[in-house]
């Protein structure tokens, strides 16, 4: 157990697996550390299609998608540690990280020159989004319900109310109907759905499931320890419930699909700075933390992606960065240029660019916009957008040649025509 790795990949989901394949191909000594007793991460429990449209140009299910990566990992000289939970990462120096782990084989420290952190996200739960009422059985996050049904064969309930109209909520609505449950509605606090139009049509409209926009659940009622109904209310402009608009909806199960948050506990503990906008780490275009050198972050731990393909892409970028990092004993010094989210922009990742290479920007707008330009200041790049929702992640490639046209901060804006 006393070897030093070039790179320790934390998390065996799509981002981590894609990263490990690439670092191994570059001849780096690689270990993948995964807490569960299997590789694959979240897609293993996603039996619907919609995976791999960009990366493989195919419409795959979650397991089909992720097994393409698992198979490649198995073919390579990559050490795998399953059922191994990372408790702490200690930054000893630029070229040495210590990873405290615990597993059924024991508890010890793994040494590695660099880290690719791809530990994914956690779901927001009922209390975090502030739903008062009785604390009873029958309230699950979408991910828990999905794991119950599609990994372990447990049916959560019969009469379902879903909170949140993101793709996860929409897909779960259909999933419940396909198992014979009744979905009484999808409640969305915003004035527009958060999921793809394709999913609104295929998951709700095709099954006659009502979508209640500008509504929220203001109370959970119970009978003998189980949800018996939900009180739903309309909300005003500032998203506060309007008194007098309460309606009681009978249901025995409430599914919270209110979004994901990058898992950053271990990162924060080692001093990685967090962006309050993404709630993920602040990184440069190597996807390296700007405060802890040699720690690279990819996938949903970096930023919540709507497509798994982007998580994979980030994993591959991180892998290339690690290769360079090890060669040069660090990321080469640069006059870093800040990427600044301007008007109508919720966030942009990465937060700094070196100008030395092409960079992929991931960004979301802060409100639905029509007839806009997505504009990158200084460089003079303008991308017309006919219609754009906050739920769609924008992926923009900036070429090295474009970046070299201008030195200074890069302001990203969405301006209406």
């Amino acid at each position, binding site marked *: 157990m006393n070897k030093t790795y070039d790179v320790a990949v934390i998390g065996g989901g799509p981002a981590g697996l894609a990263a490990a394949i690439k670092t191994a191909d570059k001849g780096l000594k690689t270990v993948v550390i995964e807490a569960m007793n299997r590789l694959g991460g979240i897609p293993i429990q996603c039996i619907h299609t919609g995976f791999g449209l960009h990366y493989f140009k195919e419409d795959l299910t979650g397991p089909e998608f992720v097994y393409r990566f698992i198979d490649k990992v198995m073919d390579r000289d990559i050490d795998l540690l399953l059922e191994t*939970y990372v408790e702490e990462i200690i930054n000893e120096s630029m070229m040495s990280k210590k990873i405290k782990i615990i597993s*059924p084989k024991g508890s010890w420290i793994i040494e590695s020159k660099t880290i690719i952190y791809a530990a994914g996200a956690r779901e927001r739960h009922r209390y975090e989004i502030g739903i*008062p009422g009785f604390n009873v059985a029958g309230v699950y996050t979408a*991910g828990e319900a999905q794991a119950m049904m599609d990994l372990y064969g447990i049916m959560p309930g019969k009469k379902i109310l879903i909170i949140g109209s993101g793709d996860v909520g929409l897909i779960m609505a259909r999933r419940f109907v396909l198992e014979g449950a009744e979905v009484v509605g999808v409640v969305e606090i915003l004035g527009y759905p958060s999921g793809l139009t394709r999913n609104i049509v295929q998951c709700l409209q095709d099954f006659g499931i009502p979508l209640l926009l500008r509504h929220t659940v203001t*109370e959970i009622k119970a009978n003998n320890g189980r949800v018996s109904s939900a009180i739903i209310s309309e909300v005003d402009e500032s998203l506060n419930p309007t008194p007098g608009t309460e309606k009681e909806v009978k249901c025995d199960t409430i599914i919270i699909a209110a979004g994901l948050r990058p898992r950053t506990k271990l990162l924060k503990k080692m001093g990685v700075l967090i962006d309050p906008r993404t709630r993920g780490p602040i990184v440069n275009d190597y996807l390296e933390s700007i405060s802890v050198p040699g720690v690279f972050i990819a996938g949903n731990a970096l930023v919540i992606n709507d497509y798994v393909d982007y998580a994979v892409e980030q994993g591959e970028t991180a892998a290339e960065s690690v290769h360079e990092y090890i060669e040069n004993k660090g990321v080469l010094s640069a006059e870093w240029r800040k990427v600044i989210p301007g008007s109508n922009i919720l966030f942009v990742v990465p937060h700094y660019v070196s100008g030395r290479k092409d960079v992929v920007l991931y960004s979301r707008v802060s409100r639905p916009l029509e007839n806009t330009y997505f504009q990158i200041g200084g460089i003079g790049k303008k991308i017309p957008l006919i219609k754009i929702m906050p739920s769609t992640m924008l992926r923009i490639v900036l070429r090295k040649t474009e970046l070299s046209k201008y030195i200074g901060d890069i302001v990203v804006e969405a301006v209406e025509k």
Partner: protein
Amino acid sequence: MRVGIIGAGIVGLSIARWLSRYENIEVHVIDKNPDVGWGVTKANTSIIHPCHEEDPDKHPLRMRLCLEGHDLWYEWVRELDIPSRWPGEIIVAFNDEEIHVLKHYLSLAVRNKVPGVKLLDKEELLSIEPKINPSAIMGLYAPSAGSIDPIQAAIAIAENCADNNVYFHLGEKVIDVIIRDRRVVGVVTSEKVYDFDIVINAAGLYADEISRMAGINDYYIFPRRGQYILYDSTAEPKPEKIIHTTPTPKTKGVYVLKTTDDTLLIGPTAEDLSPDKKNELRTTREGINYLLRNAEKLLPRLPPRNLVIKTFAGLRPEPSTGSFIIRFHEDPWGFIDVAGIRSPGLTAAPAIGKYVVELIHKHIDLKPKNKWKRYRKGIVRIKDLGVEDRNKLITKNPSYGRIICQCRGVSEAEIIEAINRMKKIGVKEITLDGIKFRTHTMYGRCQGSFCRVLVSLIISRYVGIKPWEITFRGGNSFYGIGEVKSLFKEVIR
């Protein structure tokens, strides 16, 4: 001599622990819930009060029991391995009127002989506790205040009682008290009839109902709801000291405290409900907003909302008489009320137990056991051990290295240990809440969205029931409704 205690809350259990020292009595504890401590005991502020807020003129017994109970907890937490912290508490004043209130409690501290209580001027206040809102002008510091994990305390006492041959009958509701010739002779539960020579009514919110079963009808209990907000351990500002706003006639004010679990607790509200509302354990938007407003007063800023891990409510069992009702009845002989144990009932509980034993001793000669087991150890938590101790355990039992709860680093072995301990105290139904309170799985940042399903599989494996037959907390609170496809099978049938 057989003694039956109705209620496995902190009060009933404390009484049982004291009674378990005697060899000529057989102690039985009955509770309607599947597990111990699920009444008032599981949802309160968890403070071991210094007792400078108790008025010795109005409530002499309560004051005495609070003071004595406080000191007994110093020993009980050590003997029973109960998580506790003793940071002291500060009542914070923001205006002249509130300074008067502080001075009033200082005078009570002097009268009650509470140690160490003193006023702090603004500078002292902010240096002793820098995480108080700088608009505070004075504080009253009581260094003896502590906080325990109340549900772990109930579990610890129950385990110690079981070790000392106390019998538990859980999941059985008492529906009648049997009286013959003006003496109690037993109780009827939803399951069985028990013969007892003495019956102790420690039924918390429902003590009035039990008293009525014994023909006693001179008081009632009404619920006073207290709501809480719990934040993740990373939330800031998180003061070291227990701090709270000035008490009112109804309450001890709103508290902000770091729990024994390192989380941040804000609460409670004080809402009087009608006596028939003993199930109103619900949180409300108004209640939560009230707490946030008070916390905003106490702290320089509010902790971020995304770090809320839970909101919940408890109900104080308020007696219509205002005082603790603790009495040995002559008619019916052998019936003992321990009712209306409202705040500071958690603090007072060990002393209440002792006091009840003294009441019994006046009527019956109690003979101490030769071998009474004083100590109990909690579940070993792998995350708290150093590398060497860990590896020793993992080598013997690899499931100590299999982490099930990623938020709190809880292993499979701890969950199995919890199941075994539940069985040992007579828990018939292994529930998710029972596991949660014992291991702190499903208790952290993600509230079980990752690990609950894994915990249900472990229970399923060890108890031999299907995952969907497991309940959160008994009754109809099933984890699932059946296997996937069961809804189609229903249709076909």
